């Protein structure tokens, strides 16, 4: 079993990271009171923007182009999220509808633009991020092979974002205000906080992180943009709820998904696992999530105002 775990771990982490960072994006948005069903679309859009930059620059500056791609993917996701922000914050639209529209627009529009720009719906990346063993740390017994071997730089960036998010949310004035906007926006407003602005910031951050997640998929395991992220945005949303709207909960939830899915994916080539009917392995993460949700259901920590438009009656 240990051998299997050791074998799976680095790839499970690689698979987890984009979901994790997207889910963290969702965390900002929902903590500010804006439900973001559009994470999937934001990922797609960010992935598209990043892929296009990498595509343009990879022959000129291979290493740099990847990091630029990550940056532009973030910006692209953030920019695209403005559409959701505008509808759900400025226009007080139904946030679920707006998010659904974001998903639909991203899928259709990126392919439409990709065709026009590159003449091709698919955008390929020559080479993604390298995978490296962290010197010294990868030699630590147990933890070394699990955590510090074959890692992507992006993984550490995302873990940094995770820690930073925790700190921002709970230790800074910005975080306090953000959470207040998601729990009781009118209280926040009466404390002099510009709820609209906070929500805009949060939704844009969620777009940036989801966009980053999209590009990470591209520069780590997929190497190609094809107009879809295969439902990972929805998984990120589920992980957000499963993780009870908390950074560490989200880490746990996404890693659980990542590990189980990876295990199911590769069970075919691992004789020890191939005795289990594949359908069981495939279905396992989803069934377990349902069970976990039942167990945690007693203490739901959902932001109280998430999904409710905020309207001060201003003209």
């Amino acid at each position: 079993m240990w051998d299997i775990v050791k074998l799976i771990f680095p790839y499970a982490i690689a698979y987890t990271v984009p979901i994790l960072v997207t889910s963290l994006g969702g965390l900002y948005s929902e903590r500010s009171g804006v439900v973001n069903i559009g994470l999937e679309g934001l990922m797609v859009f960010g992935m598209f923007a990043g892929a296009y930059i990498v595509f343009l620059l990879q022959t000129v500056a291979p290493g740099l182009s990847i990091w630029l791609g990550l940056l532009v993917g973030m910006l692209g996701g953030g920019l695209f999220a403005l559409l959701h922000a505008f509808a759900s914050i400025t226009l007080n639209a139904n946030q679920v509808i707006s998010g659904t529209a974001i998903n639909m627009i991203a899928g259709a529009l990126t392919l439409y633009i990709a065709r026009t720009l590159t003449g091709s719906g698919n955008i390929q990346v020559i080479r993604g991020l390298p995978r490296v063993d962290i010197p010294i740390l990868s030699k630590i017994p147990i933890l070394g092979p699990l955590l510090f071997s074959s890692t992507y730089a992006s993984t550490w960036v995302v873990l940094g974002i995770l820690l930073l998010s925790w700190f921002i949310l709970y230790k800074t004035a910005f975080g306090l205000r953000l959470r207040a906007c998601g729990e009781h926006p009118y209280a926040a407003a009466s404390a002099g906080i510009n709820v609209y602005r906070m929500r805009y910031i949060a939704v844009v951050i969620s777009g940036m992180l989801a966009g980053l997640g999209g590009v990470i998929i591209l520069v780590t395991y997929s190497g190609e943009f094809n107009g879809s992220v295969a439902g990972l945005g929805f998984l990120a949303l589920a992980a957000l709820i499963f993780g009870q709207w908390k950074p560490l909960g989200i880490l746990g939830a996404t890693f659980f998904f990542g590990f189980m899915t990876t295990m199911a994916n590769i069970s075919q080539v691992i004789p020890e696992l191939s005795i289990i009917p594949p359908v069981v392995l495939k279905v396992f993460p989803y069934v377990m999530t349902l069970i976990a949700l039942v167990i945690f259901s007693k203490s739901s920590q959902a932001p109280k105002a998430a999904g409710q438009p905020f309207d001060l009656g201003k003209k």
Partner: protein
Amino acid sequence: MEYIIEMIDIYKEFPGVIANNNITLRLKKGEVHALLGENGAGKSTLMSILFGLYHADRGTIKVRGKEVNIQNPNVAYDLGIGMVHQHFQLVHNFTVTENIILGSEGKQILDRKTASKKIKDLSVRYGLNINPNDKIEDISVGMQQRVEILKMLYRDAEVLIFDEPTAVLTPQEIIELMNIIRNLIEEGKSVILITHKLKEIKLIADRCTIIRRGKYIGTVDVGKTTTGEMAKMMVGREVLFNVDKDEAKPGEVILEINDLNVLNSRKTLGLKNFSLSVKCGEVMGVAGVEGNGQTELVEAITGLRKTESGTIHISGNEISRLSIRKRYETGLSYIPEDRHKHGLILDYTVGENMIMKLYYQEPYSKRGILNPTAIEEHSNKVMELFDVRAGEGNMSLASNLSGGNQQKAIVGREIDMNPDLLIAFQPTRGLDVGAIEYIHKRIIEQRDAGKAVLLVSLELDEILDLSDRVAVVAGGELIDVVNIEDTNENELGLMMTGVRREDMHE
């Protein structure tokens, strides 16, 4: 500089409603200035404009003689203006400290320790008795109000606006609040106080500005004006303050509660070994500080909450294991505390709301199919009987009714079911005197028709006006049941703190 605040000719319109139609209000430094008006008169709107939450369409605001533009609450705080809202603006799962520093945290990285210390100091100085580390959801409403006050003090507000602060308080808490307000005045602050209770205005205010339907009526010197005069200015007609009622003629026991134990939302016993019996033809008032078991009692009777042990009989039938609907069918009606949470389905029409508990019965439906004619007839009847006014009659959405009309609709619906036992939980909360008068009359009519009424109210005046007997609760226990003639406000207030009558007269 005579006035610290001057609001001149303030005009504010909401879609379809002119909330403020050229209202003028001038606040002197060091005074308590009351703002009086019916529900929907525009009081909260006016104060929200002063506090920077809304923007006036027209009009001028001067602070200390200088014209200002209050863009948002931050500007208001900078000008030394703070506000305690009618509905508390507190984040329930934040601590007291977090709520108070929210929006004026100082540095970007939170320093909760220093803030807590400052809050503790303020709390001691003004006698507020607050623990900065408590979570809001764990403290009483009275305490929450003090947090709101601390929020203003923390920001060095000079002008403090209180929007209906006493509506949610117990008599004792009201007295304490009055003391706090006096402290504030002594420390050199000025206060604007919104309240529907003329008695309170008399007690503490220096001057009073009265508005009606968004229009400025006048400003009076409280010392030189009677409550009757003020009430007349407010509603535009004479108001009866006391409910006329004859002697009660109590009959058989209809509601019998024995040794009832009920858990509260925090999973501890909210009602302990509670026993009570209510007779036909009487109004049984339940007096108590909020959160002392009233909700648990009422919800246990109606079935919204499970009981742990004990029995509840209505007309001799044990009902504590029956479904909610079965209980209503035994002749129980219930005017709920929160009209928006429980009382109405705001997206349904008034007509649909009128059959909320009847829709499955003939003639409103037959074999699962609704009968629109019967529904319409029924709701028109109730609306007429109880003077429910709505733009499109029974086809109006409930959400489009004003608060008073919503409440009248609920009262009408419940009384029209001709219940043997009517439970009325805070039936007039937040309503103006006109609406209160009307609802009180209906409750007494019910009693006079030989029906039982269980009236839960946090307002002692209401209890004293309507009840024949009063059950006082404290800490989830029944303290005592007293006849209304044998008691008075002071005694009830003391009992509500948990002191038993025997102990009082020693």
